[in-house]
């Protein structure tokens, strides 16, 4: 019974993995010591942003144009799938001196 359940989960995971388009990439953005690295990055719609907060302070990745606003709890990594193509200036709402640019291609 338990084994059957596990197998079902593994099958579901395998199917799920196959459903991800081959070109989708993961782009890592790190916030550490109140600095966003890299300051400029390029991605495609469908790519996943891996937002790493290495500070003991909460940050956000907030697009100036309103396209996204992701909370980044202290010492946590969160992910966000890019939905819209555009060149986005984003910043941290709590510390607006933290700024970077993300170019999202279609």
């Amino acid at each position, binding site marked *: 019974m338990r084994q059957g359940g596990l197998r079902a989960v593994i099958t579901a995971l395998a199917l799920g993995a196959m459903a991800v388009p081959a070109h989708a990439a993961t782009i890592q953005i790190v916030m550490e010591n109140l600095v966003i690295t890299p300051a400029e990055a390029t991605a495609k719609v469908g790519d996943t942003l891996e937002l790493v907060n290495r500070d003991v*302070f909460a940050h956000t990745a907030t697009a100036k144009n309103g396209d996204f606003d992701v909370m980044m709890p202290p010492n946590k990594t969160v992910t966000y799938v890019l939905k819209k193509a555009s060149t986005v200036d984003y910043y941290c709402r*709590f510390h*607006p*001196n933290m700024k970077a640019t993300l170019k999202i291609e279609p």
Partner: protein
Amino acid sequence: MFIRLGAAIAAMALASGAAFAQGAKLTDPQIAHIAYTAGNIDIAAAKQAQSKATSKDVKAFADDMVRDHEAVNKQALDLVKKLNVTPEDNDTSKALSKQAADKLAELGRLSGAAYDKAYVANEVAYHKTVNGALEKQLIPSSSNAELKSLLQTGLKIFQGHEQHAEHVAASLK
């Protein structure tokens, strides 16, 4: 009456910069004490705002201040413990605390939108003063590399707070 109030405001404006206007060389235990005191002052102001503020943005800003300054002060406490340094009370810390107590009492007499505006305006001014002191006095005077690095992180955080406070202030107009 109005002249008296004006004189009082002028005196306070002069006093707000005065806490840091000493020429004496500060030691690391004194610098640690000043930085910790400066953080606690902002936490006390934010806690007052959490109970008094009416604007949603001002309340959220106060939450951010409590969270960040408590996190910085925890790091400061961990560091002095690690370095086996006992923070040392000093004239700058005393002057800061005295001014802050007066300001807290003054803000305590306001309410509603007037309070929100005055709190946020003071946050802009206070962070500006502390950032100036960090840049010109506390960071250059500190000798321990880890203390200096923590103060530099603090400066970036507080510069962020200053900008955040300016945004909130602009949204209240």
